[in-house]
């Protein structure tokens, strides 16, 4: 948690950095070079040597996508490119684009909210209450309050019902790991045989969760457990169980996914 404050003094996360790099050159959008952006991004990443692992992961995930985009552009022709890889990259790119736009939207809103706050900060509300002439009128809020009631109030305040919300601060965040997703999907897909990416991600609200499932699908494809096919660009991806694949022992290493 400290990492947010300490490790990234300039950039509030990978989107912030990427937006900054791209928009810095917005003046001449037709001359923007992906290579420059990617190199600059990696250079910034290198500067963050004391980056904490959790923050670094976010930055690295974006870096991986960027590098893949750059690599693809440097390829001489498309003949050698596998269509599935190509489509996966398109999807990743679109996702990145969508997230950048959403991030930028709220950055701009925040600027307006800041002016609201600045204006409101120059205004002081009266919160004085009735003067002593009305002290007789005011009902005695503590009427009937006993030591016993006070104790009950305190105990009630610290009962587990409340700790529910307390625990927020202490439990480790829910993390979706690729390995977990693979484990889950292996069972699901093996059971139904044929399915689609959309079907596997219905009901998921967290975008991160969808991304992780996507990575998991790619991993399973790489290991030969499933076949993937996408008829149209942006279309649904069909997922087919092959029933074969490498041994389960490699699954433990999935989390250190190399993108």
């Amino acid at each position, binding site marked *: 948690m400290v990492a947010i404050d300490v490790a990234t003094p300039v950039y*509030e996360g990978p989107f912030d950095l990427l937006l900054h790099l791209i*928009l810095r050159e917005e003046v001449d959008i037709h001359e923007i070079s992906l290579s420059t952006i990617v190199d600059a991004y990696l250079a910034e990443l290198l500067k963050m040597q004391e980056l904490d692992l959790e*923050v670094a992961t976010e930055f690295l995930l974006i870096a991986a996508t960027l590098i893949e985009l750059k690599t693809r552009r440097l390829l001489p022709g498309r003949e050698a490119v596998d269509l599935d890889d190509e489509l996966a990259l398109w999807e990743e790119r679109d996702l990145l684009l969508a997230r950048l736009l959403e991030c*930028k939207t709220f950055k701009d809103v925040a600027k307006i*909210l800041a002016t609201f706050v600045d204006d*409101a*900060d120059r205004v002081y509300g009266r919160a004085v209450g009735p003067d002593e002439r009305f002290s007789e009128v005011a009902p005695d809020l503590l009427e009937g309050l006993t030591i016993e009631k006070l104790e009950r109030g305190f105990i009630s305040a610290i009962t587990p019902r409340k700790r529910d919300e307390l625990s927020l601060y202490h439990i480790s965040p829910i993390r979706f790991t690729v390995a977990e997703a693979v484990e889950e999907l292996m069972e699901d897909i093996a059971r139904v045989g044929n399915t689609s990416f959309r079907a596997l991600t219905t009901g998921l609200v967290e975008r*991160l969760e969808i991304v992780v499932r996507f990575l998991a699908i790619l991993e399973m494809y790489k290991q030969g457990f499933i076949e993937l096919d996408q008829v149209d660009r942006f279309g649904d991806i069909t997922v087919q169980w092959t029933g074969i694949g490498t041994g389960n022992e490699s699954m433990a290493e999935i989390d250190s996914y190399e993108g």
Partner: protein
Amino acid sequence: MKDDVTTETVRAIEAIVLVAHEPVPTDLIAQLLEIPATTVDEVCARLAETYEEAGHGFQLAKVAGGWRFQTHPDLAPYVERFILDGQRARLSGAALETLAIIAYKQPISRLQIASIRGVDPDSVLRTLHGRAYVAPVSRDNGPGQAVLWGTTQLFLEKLGIASLKDLPAIASFVPDASLVEALEKTLLIEADSISEPSEGA
């Protein structure tokens, strides 16, 4: 002032708002004075204008769903000199961005916020919760039963607005076409021309 509103009603509103600890909801005033809520808002808005025209050092303003007396923004330097602990806690850019996301997308989970900002909002959320600008409002129905966050009355006061409806429309902040183009061009997969990938490889 509207003809059917007595001077006494107007004066009573001034008196009630003066002794309140926090913004007085329109409905409460309406109920106490036995007049329609719309009339209350009309009278208060008119009163606010009168004060402004008369050049008073105070204002009547609708904040966080109710009416309150507050100092005129012009006079902040004097008021701050008077209130010794007048320094307001400033909100960081990260805090404001997180607040903006929560304000527009509430109820929203921490992970959803993280996905928009690209960083874990944990520490920022704690600060905002500590200052009571946001609070847990419900729980997600999903497997994790994630806590969902929303903004508070105090958030409205901090922004000096009467309700969430006073926030600017989010649509007006969606990045314009040139920016979208800039992002898209930068993240193009192919350098020269975009053509459909060859079918059925």
